[in-house]
């Protein structure tokens, strides 16, 4: 499985665990990688920014996809680390959308919007608006909704994001109606 790493601009580009693991073909498509995005082989992980710097006050700066030598990958692709042009913010949204789609199905999820918010106790939280397809409520079962909630929670845990997800479901039409209400 390809590993999705958030990287810092510093001496040690990453700590802990990858944000996600997925088939290489899926990672290539999701993070819009090209064969020319290879930045390092598997022996020495790539460094970004000032490699003497040890602090990471600016947070994660980029997304790196690690494709191992045993991965099923396009024939002209080498194993190694690939730097994605996807921003860290967008990568978080993509991974959360992926978690939702895995439970709700591609046909029921139109898109996902993230916004910082607070929970009912005033703690920092992650607002997640899940735009669902028209008639998705007719197709979905309770199990899928529960699995989706758990999937998002698990994805946040893998990203070491301790914020509670505040999930809101609506169709495009309902969002427009609410905006004009």
């Amino acid at each position, binding site marked *: 499985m390809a590993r999705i790493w958030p990287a810092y601009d510093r001496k040690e580009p990453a700590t802990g665990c990858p944000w996600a693991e997925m088939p290489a073909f899926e990672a290539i498509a999701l993070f819009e990688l090209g064969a020319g995005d290879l930045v390092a082989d598997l022996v020495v992980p790539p460094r970004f920014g000032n490699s003497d710097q040890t602090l990471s006050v600016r947070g994660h700066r980029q997304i790196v996809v690690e494709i191992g030598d045993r991965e099923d990958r396009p024939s002209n692709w080498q194993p190694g680390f690939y730097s994605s042009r996807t921003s860290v913010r967008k990568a978080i949204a993509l991974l959360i959308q992926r978690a939702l789609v895995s439970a709700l199905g591609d046909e029921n999820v139109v898109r996902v919007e993230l916004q910082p918010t607070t*929970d009912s106790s005033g703690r920092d939280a992650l607002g997640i608006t899940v735009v669902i397809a028209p008639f998705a*409520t007719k197709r979905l079962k*309770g199990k899928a909704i*529960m699995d989706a909630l758990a999937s998002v929670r698990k994805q946040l*845990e893998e990203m070491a994001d301790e914020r509670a997800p505040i999930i809101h479901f609506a169709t495009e039409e309902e969002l427009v109606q609410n905006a004009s209400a």
Partner: protein
Amino acid sequence: MPVLNPDHLIDQANYLVDIPGRGAPRQVDLRRAISSVYYALFHAVLTAAADSIVGRTHRDTPRYQLVYRSINHTSISNICEQIEKTTLAQKFSKYQPRGGFHIDLKNVATTFLYLQERRHLADYDPLYRVTISEARLVILAGREALARFQSVNAEHRNAFSSLLLFAPR
């Protein structure tokens, strides 16, 4: 004395969202629907806790009432936040069933937290606009969570109830 039937609260929510022969539901109906679904799960948790400590054959006693009323919304959310984690904090982990809490109970905990946030908005936030889609999905999730909570292995449910009633030090 019969305790409150949580299924009836979910039926009520369903009725408020899809009232036969009427047009689109009002915001107040959608808000009450979300609240009812949350309270269905809330009362199911309280009933399970009081049943585990006092016993279901004593449901008509003041002692049962005492235990039932001792649990509040925050204490449930605090435990749910622990249970849903892949690894429980050490303070809690020694009280979990062997092998950890069942995945169904973990997912119920996650759903409870989701419903609690929705309920909070529905009951208190004047700017919150409930969508019909959301209300329907809340009902689906609530009904499933209730069924899973009631069917999960009693040992797991009792361990959950114990942590709820007796905060570990």
